[in-house]
């Protein structure tokens, strides 16, 4: 474990140089339309609203870029062969890798604010907006992580499952049928609204449900890593 902890900074730099760099490029491309459309006439409130909307899109893109193939790429490209011949547990390795990915995600989000400040206007979206982005990151990346060892198209499962979840939750409300109650427990929480309202405070119950659901997903992903041998076909 000590070796793995000492290895972590280099792994973090790898993620930063590969995934982080792509995120910044995507951030630039998402900021470009705002920059070109001009914001000279916009009020601070309008600017803030646009920025918060952009932050939502960036958050999803960045989450998918950060968590895509976190386990699967090592299997697909055969990196696991040398990595896990060392005295290292794959579960510990991927848990730390997930931590490093989360830090890269946060840095990319902050880098995007820098881009927006330079290209559009120096606006700070506020901590509540960031809190929501991070909570969504944990949920979506958890879903992606579950599928990472199972399929090459893990990145598509997160958004699709969230979309299907929202649809089913809308059609089968929890308080109207037994099926709705089951779906409410099984499906990822998509009806939580704002976890961190802009006017302050925290919606603790939905936040804890969302984080608990994300934690279960990460645990499930690690169980798959543990139980499904690295050399077996997907």
């Amino acid at each position, binding site marked *: 474990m000590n070796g793995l902890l*000492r290895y972590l900074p280099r792994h973090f730099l790898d993620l930063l140089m590969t995934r982080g760099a792509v995120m910044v490029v995507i951030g630039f491309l998402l900021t470009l339309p705002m920059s070109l459309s001009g914001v000279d006439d916009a009020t601070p409130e309008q600017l803030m609203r646009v920025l918060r909307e952009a932050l939502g899109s960036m958050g999803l893109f960045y989450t998918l870029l950060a968590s895509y193939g976190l386990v699967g790429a090592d299997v697909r490209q055969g990196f*696991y062969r*040398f990595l896990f*011949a060392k*005295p*290292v547990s794959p579960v510990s390795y991927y848990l730390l890798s997930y931590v490093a990915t989360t830090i890269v995600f946060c840095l990319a989000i902050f880098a995007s604010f820098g881009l927006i400040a330079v290209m559009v206007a120096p606006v700070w979206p506020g901590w509540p907006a960031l809190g929501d982005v991070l909570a969504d990151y944990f949920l979506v990346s958890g879903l992606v992580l579950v599928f990472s060892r199972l399929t090459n198209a893990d990145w598509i499962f997160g958004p699709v499952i969230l979309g299907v979840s929202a649809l089913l939750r809308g059609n089968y409300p929890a308080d109207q049928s037994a099926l709705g109650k089951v779906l409410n427990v099984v499906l990822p929480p998509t009806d939580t609204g704002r976890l961190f309202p802009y006017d302050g405070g925290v919606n603790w119950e939905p936040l804890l449900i969302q984080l608990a659901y994300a934690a279960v997903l990460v645990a499930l992903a690690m169980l798959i890593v543990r139980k499904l041998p690295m050399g077996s*076909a997907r």
Partner: protein
Amino acid sequence: MIELRGAGKTYRSLITRKEVHALRDFSITLQPGEVFGIAGPNGAGKTTLLALLLGYLKPTAGTIHIEQTEPRAWVERFGVAYLSELIGIPRWWKTDGTLHRYALLEDMAPTERKAKVEGLIEQLGLAEHRSKRVKQLSKGNLQRLGLAQALLSDSRLVILDEPTHGLDPLWTQRFRDVVEAERRPDRLIIIASHNLDELERLADRVAILDRGTLVRVADASDHSAEGAGVWRLVLTADHPALLTHFPGATKSAQVRELSFDVHGTIEDLNVRLQRALADGMRVRAFFPAQSRLEAAFRDAVQGGSGA
């Protein structure tokens, strides 16, 4: 140290349920201190066997234990000095950075890590390539980097899959020296290779696999069997009494013009050779036309296929 009892691995198609037996009913005990070779044609199950030993695959039949422990648990605790047939290292890593990264995972202290990495860079001739990225390395250099990362480990288990693949003759020779240097009484070295000559030189025993089945375990260190067989005699110039001294000698299938296959026991051939030399025959080389392992391999594999 390693015990396989009826170990097997069967792949089953999810849709058609068609089964492919990559390894069947494999039983053997391997002891520390020995160099154990695994030979077999393509698809014989060599790499599957190694993946089972590393816990990268789970057997579908039988059991595999390393010191009474499941392979994956043992590897996670002690690590294995492993060189895979396919070298999977991120292409953007640099040569020295690669070794430092893997050394970190070996949990080495910083001073030990630096010394070990520098030593291996020197030993495996990677000094001039140390700043190159993996994607810039030639096949031979990549193979040496793969070998270097394996040798970082001080593990009691060394597994090398096609270790000389892509190496030039010079480095193939040096590789043999490296393996000899890695021999220790408490260490088991397993080498899977197509190269029978290499296995014969390095291994104490060689398992011959064919289509997933262990056909034979040949004792490569036993030279007592070096008796009757076909020997190759290479002359510097034609000799009129060749057939008198070596009745039944035939031109060997090799292109070399003055190369002949002769038959007999080693004692009998020594006597004949002595007479021939006294008679003015000039010999350039005299060696077994086929190594014992090669013969054992051919017998085992062709016998298995009914050829």
